[in-house]
């Protein structure tokens, strides 16, 4: 019934189809999408502020083991952390409204600097992991869908679950044990050796993306060093995400593979491999891409543990460091960035999905 009513409405549309489907309404969509970031950020900031402040202040976290209680409370008073929370909250919001993310409380860095420097590291890791996840996830997911309910499928699915079931810190431990301790072929932590690090200091305009930076330097040893450092973390985070991707791809391809249009194409003699590669794949891509977008957010979350395990000094690493130090200004800054990234990624995903799916019009 709903189909037929839809038929009717599209039927009238078909008479005068819009050619430019990414027009006016589309930008309105972009706008709403972006305006939606504001409440999201606002809510996150609020939650994080109150939860963090309920668990302590940065001064006692840092100096509680050194100062007398009087001295401590004097400093807390001076810093204003003994004011009512709501006053402090409004104070902080006031700063935010002026576009001022502030400076971190524990090490006096402008939050903006933290975001750009460590953001680059996280992006680099996320990018590399995404490559791993996409290759493994799409490759194996499609194989599993094609051979569903056969041995290959079962094997791939168990592999996917293992990827997901193995905590990053345990996987990290095992990887380190194998590659850094036993085989001693890969470094166990960090983004580069100290010597490469020193080389980067020579750059006039370092990007923070070590791969790009080492290309800028034009030094092959630095590049290999950087890549060697990236292997284990990218693998750990990539596999974690790949587990999810395999499942996602498999489910969606199976669903489209069983759909009416694939059946119809089959009835016209289209070969099975083409059915999978063309007819089933492209429609499956729409939900896959949408969910993959959500996964980027998960990846940032997964990055906290991965970055901590491999000392990949990125946003996730800093986030947990600052969280422990109760540096709420720094945490808020990172949270805001993450919220924006999530929103932007989701937005990009929507655009891509819209480009793939001709039905989505704005």
């Amino acid at each position, binding site marked *: 019934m709903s189909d037929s009513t839809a038929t009717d409405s599209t039927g009238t549309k078909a008479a005068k189809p819009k050619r430019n489907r990414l027009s006016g309404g589309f930008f309105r969509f972009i706008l709403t999408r972006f305006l939606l970031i504001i409440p999201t950020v606002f809510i996150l900031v609020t939650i994080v502020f109150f939860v963090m402040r309920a668990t302590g202040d940065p001064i*006692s976290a840092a100096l509680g083991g050194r100062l007398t209680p*009087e001295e401590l409370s004097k400093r807390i008073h001076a810093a204003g952390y003994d004011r009512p929370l709501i006053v402090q909250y409004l104070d902080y919001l006031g700063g935010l409204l002026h576009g001022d993310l502030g400076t971190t409380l524990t*090490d006096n860095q402008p939050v903006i600097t933290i975001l750009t420097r460590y953001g680059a590291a996280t992006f680099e890791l996320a990018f590399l992991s995404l490559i791993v996840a996409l290759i493994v996830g799409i490759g194996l997911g499609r194989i599993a869908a094609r051979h569903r309910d056969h041995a290959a499928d079962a094997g791939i699915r168990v592999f996917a679950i293992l990827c997901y079931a193995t905590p990053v810190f345990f996987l990290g431990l095992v990887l380190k044990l194998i590659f850094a301790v036993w085989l001693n072929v890969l470094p166990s*932590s*960090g983004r580069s050796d*100290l010597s490469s*690090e020193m080389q980067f200091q020579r750059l006039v305009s370092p990007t923070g993306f070590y791969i790009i930076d080492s290309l800028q330097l034009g030094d092959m040893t630095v590049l290999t060093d950087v890549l060697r450092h990236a292997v284990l973390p990218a693998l750990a985070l990539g596999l974690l995400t790949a587990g999810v991707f395999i499942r996602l791809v498999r489910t969606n391809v199976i669903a489209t593979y069983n759909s009416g249009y694939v059946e119809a194409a089959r009835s016209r003699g289209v070969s099975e491999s083409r059915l999978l590669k063309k007819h089933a794949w492209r429609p499956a891509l729409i939900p896959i891409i949408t969910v993959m977008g959500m996964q980027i957010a998960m990846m940032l979350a997964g990055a906290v543990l991965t970055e901590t395990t491999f000392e990949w*000094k990125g946003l996730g690493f800093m986030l947990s460091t600052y969280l422990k130090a109760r540096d709420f200004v720094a945490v808020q800054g990172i949270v805001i960035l993450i919220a924006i990234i999530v929103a932007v990624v989701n937005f990009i995903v929507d655009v891509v999905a819209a480009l793939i799916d001709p039905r989505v019009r704005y």
Partner: protein
Amino acid sequence: GVKDDGAGATANAGSAITIGTTDKITSVDPAGSYDNGSYAVQIQIFPFLYAQNYNTSELSPDIAADDGTWNSDGTEFTVKLKDGLKFANGNDLTASDVKFSFDRIKKIDDPNGPSSLLANIDSVTAKDDTTVVFKDTVPYDVTLKQVLSSPAGPIVDEDSFDADKLTPADTIVSKKAFAGPYTLTSFKNNESAAYAKNDSYQGLTPAKNSAVQVKYFADASNLKLAVQQGQVDVAYRSLSPTDIEDLSKDSKVKVVKGPGGEERFLAFNFKIQPYGEKSSEPDANKAKAVRQAVANLIDRDELSTKVYKDTYTPLYSFIPDGLAGHDDTLKAAYGDGNGKPSAEKAKQVLEAAGVKTPVDLKLQYNNDHYGSSSADEYAAIKNQLEADGLFKVDLQSTEWTQYNKERNVTDSSDGAYPVYQLGWFPDYSDPDNYLSPFFRDGNFVNNGYANKEVNDLIVKQAGEKDASAREEILKQIQKLETEDLSTIPLLQGAQVAVTGANVKGVTLDASFRFRYASVTKG
């Protein structure tokens, strides 16, 4: 593009000594930090008026020209500076820089800063270019010189640093505002730092190497792998006992140990400990008996060998080994007299005071601030206390910020932990720093303990000019405390560094500072 002036950094890169550490830096600017990680950077790049020479805890002039002189009533301390002192950027280092350095710490009064150390200093004046006068509120204050060598003591360039706010690390690096053994050539907060020898340094500990690079690790096990794989020449601080034990079996690396200023102890809350002032059955005698029984049952050897693999040593004294006044008073007073526990004595003490056994004890520790081995340490203590059925221990751990808030006895609260773990890292290596924060009124431990006699003695020793007289007082204080047991010292930390086989000169002494200057390679 690549910077032209990067040559310095790269030229030395090959021969540079690389150091790995798990320290965390709060600030390079002395006014903004009061922690070991930042201090470890500052001692390399800033000079002090006084500092310890290698292998001693005594203070010697660093950039001061003499040992300083007190005026007749002990309120003014005059220090002469060496002539011709310069910063690496060519600026002269004069008395006015010294005044500037101390004034700004007080002025900025950063929440993370060391201003509280300067509480006794009333004012600083620059008499002339090489003469500085400190006005002190305590007559003949023996801690003044110590304070000058503490985290509040680095001398900075008044032309490069802001007088009323913190100066960012980048500015400090680019203005080359260094007058310590090293200059900082590049710095990335908590990631890496590169040091080059400062040739204009005329102080106590000039660098024996030309360049040092430091990599900051977050996780000790990664640091351990790095030193094992030769990525760093020296690994310093917070390696786990397991790491150190494993490394000491490794022929490619050497383990260097020295005394540590760090102290671990049990603190009693005098309000709510069993029979404490606010307990259901307040009885000072019984309360003391409980404390003494605990002291009798503790087996420090087990803690240091089994839990810490000798990276901590047993501590039977309130003033740690290596400092004046150190005396193992607790060894004789409790246990079997040789440092081993004695259940017999514990039982006697309790019986004598009429305490019903087993005593219920709520024991608190924290495992994110004093290292994860705390859990093992306190599990072992629980076992020791419970072994003979005298105590029944309820062991709990609490996360640090909460822990720190709840342990205190304040006007409004009696604190939440009857018996709990604490640790102490000194601001400067002087016995006073192990007494005042613990037993004086308004102290750091803040456990509701007050003993007028002890308090007076502590005040007295702080103004005692004569060293041997002072030591006498220190011993007296410790004797009193051994009886009172406001806290029970357990362990003294050892400083441990792990170096590559070809690295020499790592000196870990009672200064509790790791100076890069003495390290050589090859």
